[in-house]
């Protein structure tokens, strides 16, 4: 168990350095000059040169990289060109509403997708299975922002049950929660479709294993075989699925924030991109990627608890 954990933390550290590196080189090694991009179409040669010097872009790339690494290690990811605030401060200031959306969306997604995936695997080939799979296919195929728009149309205009705006200025938490219902549900449904599909295939895989047939041959009741034995085996792939969907739900959350005009990391990133405030973009992307890595590390630790074979690794 300790070795498993040590292994995982070593990988966490390496991935951490890795994502900082990728974030750095993505922005710099790509064709195109960030300084020119930032200044837009009317930039003069001099103004670009000035900005390059200011951003340190005239230094050799390896030197820039080392500087960036050192700054990143001390929590300095540059500062916003627009506000002059440290980028990380800006990112964390915009994080709470996004976290609320992503977490409530994931909660809905897991609560919906997991049982549906299990039921359709257990009743493979039945009508229940067919319907769940068709709906899930639709769920992963319609763009999430379109589902958001459609939900506004139906539940805010035709049947005015919920506000079209995904946020309010009210300090009352109940009002805020009320505004969160529609966006969180839309996010939840889109991710639930994905979870249901992958849970189903993980569960089918487990159900076809010999030890499941053995348990049935030994007269262990079907309900218990599925609910206790098979589920425990399927949990590792299912957790892996949930880990992957976290990354997915962050991407979807950005689009949902745009549809529901909800403040958060997504709208901050959009504003930063349109303002060509690329250090802020870089910081935002890094924070989200780190969140994905941390979540997956927690899940990796959980695998070791579920599957004894992994502890020995």
């Amino acid at each position, binding site marked *: 168990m300790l070795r498993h954990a040590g292994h995982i933390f070593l*990988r966490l550290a*390496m*991935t951490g350095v*890795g*994502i900082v590196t*990728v*974030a750095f080189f*993505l*922005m710099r090694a*790509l*064709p*195109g000059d*960030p300084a020119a*991009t930032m200044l837009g179409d009317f930039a003069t040669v001099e103004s670009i040169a000035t900005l390059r010097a200011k951003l340190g872009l005239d230094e050799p790339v390896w030197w820039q990289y080392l500087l960036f690494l050192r700054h990143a290690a001390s929590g300095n990811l540059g500062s916003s060109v627009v506000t002059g605030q440290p980028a990380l401060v800006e990112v964390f200031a915009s994080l709470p509403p996004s976290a609320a959306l992503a977490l409530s969306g994931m909660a809905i997604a897991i609560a919906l997708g997991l049982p549906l995936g299990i039921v359709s695997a257990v009743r493979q080939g039945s009508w229940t299975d067919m319907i769940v799979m068709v709906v899930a*296919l*639709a769920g*992963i*195929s*319609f*763009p*999430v*922002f*379109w589902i958001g*728009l*459609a939900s*506004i*149309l139906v539940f805010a*205009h035709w049947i005015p049950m919920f506000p079209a705006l995904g946020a309010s200025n009210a300090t009352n938490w109940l009002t805020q929660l009320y505004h969160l219902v529609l966006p969180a549900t839309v996010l939840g449904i889109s991710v639930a479709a994905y979870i249901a599909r*992958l849970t189903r*295939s*993980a569960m*089918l*895989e487990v159900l076809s294993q010999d030890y499941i047939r053995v348990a049935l041959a030994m007269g262990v009741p079907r309900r218990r075989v599925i609910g206790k034995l098979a589920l425990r085996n399927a949990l590792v*792939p299912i957790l*892996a*699925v949930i880990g992957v969907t976290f*990354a*997915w739900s*962050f*991407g*979807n959350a*950005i*689009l949902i924030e*745009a*549809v529901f005009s909800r403040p958060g990391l997504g709208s901050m*990133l*959009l504003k*930063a*991109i*349109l303002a*060509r405030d*690329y250090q802020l*973009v*870089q910081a935002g*992307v890094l924070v*989200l*990627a780190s969140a*994905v*890595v941390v979540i*997956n590390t927690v899940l990796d630790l959980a695998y070791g608890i579920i599957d004894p074979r992994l502890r020995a690794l």
Partner: protein
Amino acid sequence: MSEQLEIDDAIGTLDADGIRREKRGRRAATIRRFTSHPSLVVGTVVLLALIAVALLAPSIAPYSPTRTSLVNTLAPASWAHPLGTDQFGRDVLSRLIHGTRVSLLVAFWVAAISLSVGTVVGAIAGFTGGWVDRIIVLFNDILMAFPGFLLALAIVAARGSSLDSIILAVSIAYAPRVAAVMRSVALTIRPRPFVEASRAIGLTPTQILLRHVVPNSLPPVIVVATVSAASAILAEAGLSFLGLGVKPPTPTWGNIIADGQTAITTNPLISISAGLCIAAMVVALNLIGDGLRDALDPQMRRQTARLL
């Protein structure tokens, strides 16, 4: 003794016949295996229809997709404009028909790039092993830690929005997934006896690659590529919806939805029809992916399911 020989001869011819018959039977079975998966057939038909629409767009679209008419803005559906017009008076149906092109183009290039880069990198990792493998896997894991859409967003932010940026961005996000699948296939092929045997009878690495590795790895890799293409379409639509995609007035399904958003209460048809188009293409690709996965050997499910 002579009778024994005769019998052996009889067995020989019998077996040759049998093998021929079996081969023919197997080919027929392969065809049946594909056609008996309705999802594969439906997906392929829909995709081919969309490709036809994209190729014939100028001749089947009733109007130019960019022709504005300021006297006829946000017209409701009519015989002249089956899906109405947008806020610039452009015919929505014509824009949808032309929008097929961008989506297909993105899907095609992303599948092509992520397939070629991903398979090569994955094969190198899987077959070389050792530290080369470890470095590639680490790099892959790092790229996969970035949410795909977010990575695309960042690249578009750095490069400016253009079709090239979008294709590059989505390819960078999805090539690692193809590589991961290819690597796992390579790892399962490497120790199999037929590869050893081929080496023993003196086949060159290239011959081994063409004869054994490619046929064995193609199916799972194609499945991942179809799913990447589907994700690429959704990512392009998302970027266009945010105004970071192909520059207007070029129509894309994503920016048609964005255009329709402002008029969602009065002319919901604009956004709804564009969303249905996106869904149709993504469903088609997913059906092809699902169908292939079921039609090809079931063991493959293990290699692809977790990575998608």
